[in-house]
C-alpha cells in the first residue's frame, strides 16, 4: 500500500465555490469568485472592509442566496439541501448572535436542542466547553451582564457544541484580549489536528492568519486577487511579512463602508445600555 494512500475520501473537498456572484441592487459584493477548500484545511480569507468576506460566508452558510454561481459544501448544494448543509458546520458570526436575556448555560442548551445534540452527551459537552472557555463559574448569569470578550468566548464555545466538521469563523478575535485570542487559536488548531475539522476564517489580523492558516485567500472589491500559503504570498510580493504582502496586493487606500440599518440600531442600543 502506498504511504499516502489514506483514501481519496479522506482528502476530499469540503467546500467548493464556482463563479460565485452576489449583487445587492446595483452593487456587486462578490464578483465571480471560485475556490476550493479540502478537508482538514485551515483557510483564511483576508481583505479590506467591504471586500465581500462576510457575504461569501453568508452564502456558504445558507443565510444568503447567490445571485449566480454554484456552491458545494461536503458535496451538497446549500440552496436545495439547506438543513443537510447546516448540520455540517458551526459558525461564529462577525456580530453578536446570543440571546442576552438568557444565561450562558441556557444559550448553550438551546443550541444543543436546535442542533439535536443527544441529551445524554449534551450536559457533559456544555460543561466541558464552558470550562474550557472559562465561563463555567458564571454559567447562570444572563448574557447581558457579560463583557464583550466573555460573549465572544461563549459564541465560540457554542459553535463547537455539535462537533461540526466545518467551522466558519468570521473575524472571531475582534475585541478579544491576547489571552483569549491565544486560547481560541490553540483550540482551533487542536480541533484541526485531532479531528481534521476544516476551518474557514476571516480576519484583519495578519499575524493570526500567518500563524494558523495553511492557505490564505486575498479578496478585494468582491474579487479574489491572490491565494497561496503565507510563505508563497510573501515570496510572490517580495515582502517580509504577510501584512506587507497584503498591502502590496490590495493597496493602501482606506475603504469606506456604509453602516446598515442594523448596525446603526445596534450602536443606539449600546449607547442606551450605558
Amino acid at each position, binding site marked *: 500500500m502506498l504511504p499516502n494512500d489514506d483514501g481519496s475520501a479522506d482528502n476530499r473537498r469540503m467546500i467548493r465555490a464556482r463563479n460565485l456572484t452576489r449583487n445587492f441592487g446595483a452593487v456587486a459584493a462578490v464578483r465571480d469568485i471560485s475556490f476550493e477548500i479540502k478537508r482538514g484545511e485551515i483557510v483564511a480569507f483576508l481583505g479590506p472592509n467591504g471586500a465581500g468576506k462576510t457575504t461569501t460566508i453568508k452564502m456558504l452558510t445558507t443565510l444568503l442566496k447567490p445571485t449566480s454561481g454554484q456552491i458545494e459544501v461536503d458535496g451538497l448544494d446549500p440552496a436545495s439541501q439547506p438543513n443537510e448543509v447546516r448540520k455540517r458546520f458551526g459558525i461564529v458570526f462577525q456580530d453578536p448572535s*446570543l440571546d442576552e436575556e*438568557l444565561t450562558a448555560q*441556557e444559550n448553550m442548551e438551546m443550541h444543543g436542542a436546535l442542533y439535536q445534540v443527544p441529551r445524554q452527551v449534551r450536559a457533559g459537552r456544555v460543561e466541558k466547553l464552558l470550562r474550557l472557555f472559562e465561563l463555567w463559574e458564571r454559567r447562570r448569569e444572563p448574557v447581558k451582564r457579560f463583557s464583550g470578550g466573555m460573549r465572544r468566548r461563549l459564541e465560540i464555545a457554542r459553535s463547537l457544541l455539535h462537533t461540526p466538521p466545518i467551522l466558519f469563523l468570521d473575524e472571531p478575535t475582534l475585541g478579544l484580549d491576547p489571552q483569549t485570542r491565544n486560547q481560541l487559536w490553540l483550540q482551533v488548531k487542536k480541533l484541526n489536528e485531532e479531528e481534521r475539522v476544516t476551518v474557514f476564517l476571516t480576519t484583519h489580523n495578519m499575524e493570526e492568519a500567518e500563524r494558523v492558516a495553511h492557505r490564505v485567500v486575498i479578496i478585494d472589491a468582491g474579487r479574489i486577487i491572490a491565494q497561496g500559503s503565507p510563505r508563497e504570498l510573501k515570496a510572490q510580493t517580495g515582502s517580509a511579512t504577510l501584512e506587507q504582502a497584503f498591502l502590496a496586493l490590495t493597496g493602501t487606500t482606506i475603504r469606506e463602508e456604509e453602516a446598515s440599518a442594523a448596525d446603526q440600531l445596534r450602536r443606539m442600543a449600546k449607547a442606551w445600555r450605558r
Partner: protein
Amino acid sequence: MNVIYIMWLRQLKRYVRSRARVVGSLAQPLLYLLAMGYGLGPIFQRAGMGSYRDFITPGLIAMTLLFTSVFSGIELIMDRQFGFLKETLVAPVPRLWIILGRILGGATIAFIQGLIFLCVCLAAGFRWDSLGALPVAFLFMALIGIVFSALGSAIGSALSDAQGFQFIIGFLIMPLFFLSGAMYPLDNLPKALALFTRLDPLSYGVDGLRYSLNGVVHFGLATDFIVLAAVAALLLALSSYLFSRIQV
C-alpha cells in the same frame, strides 16, 4: 417537536424575566377600564344598556391579547437586530418549527396577560354572566393570541428594521382595536363602519368573548369560531412562508 418546545420556552423565559413588560402592558387596558368604564358608564346606563364597565371588559381582554401577541411577534425584529435570529436561521431544522414555537410562545404569553387582566377586572367589580361559559372564553383568548401572534411574526419576518414600527401601531394595531367593537356595541352602526368591523378579525374574537363573559352575541358563536380559526390558519401559513424566506 423538541425545537418547537425550546423556542416556546425561550419566549416564556424572556417574558417571565421582564417584569416591566408584564406590568406595562396592563397599564393601557387598565386606564381604559377605569377612565372609560367609569367615565362613560353613566351615559351607557341612561341609554338602558347596563354596566359599561362590564360591557368593555371582554373588549379590553381582547386589547391586552392583541397588544401582547403582536409585540411578541414583532420581537423578531429585535432578534434580527441583536443578532440572535441568525443563530436560529442556521440551525439544521425546518424553519416552520422555529416560527411555530415562536408563535405559540407569543400566544401563551398573551393568554397569561389576558388572564391577569381578567383578574384585574374581577377585582374592579366585573362579574361574568355564567361560570360555565368560562372555557369558551379561554378558547377565544387562545385563538386571539394565535391569530395576532402569527400576524406580528409575519410583520416581523417581512420588515428588516424597526423603522416601520410606529406605522404599524398607528395604521394596523389601533384600527384593529377600535374597529373591533371592543368599546361599543356593533348594532345599528353606520354602513361604512359596520363594513369595517366585519373585516376586522378581532371583532369576532371580541364577540366570542362577549358571548362567554356577558352572555350577548352579535355574529353568533359558530361564525366567531370559524372566522377566527380560518384567519389563524391563513396567518400561520403566511408567517411561516415569510419566515422561511428570510435572508440576512
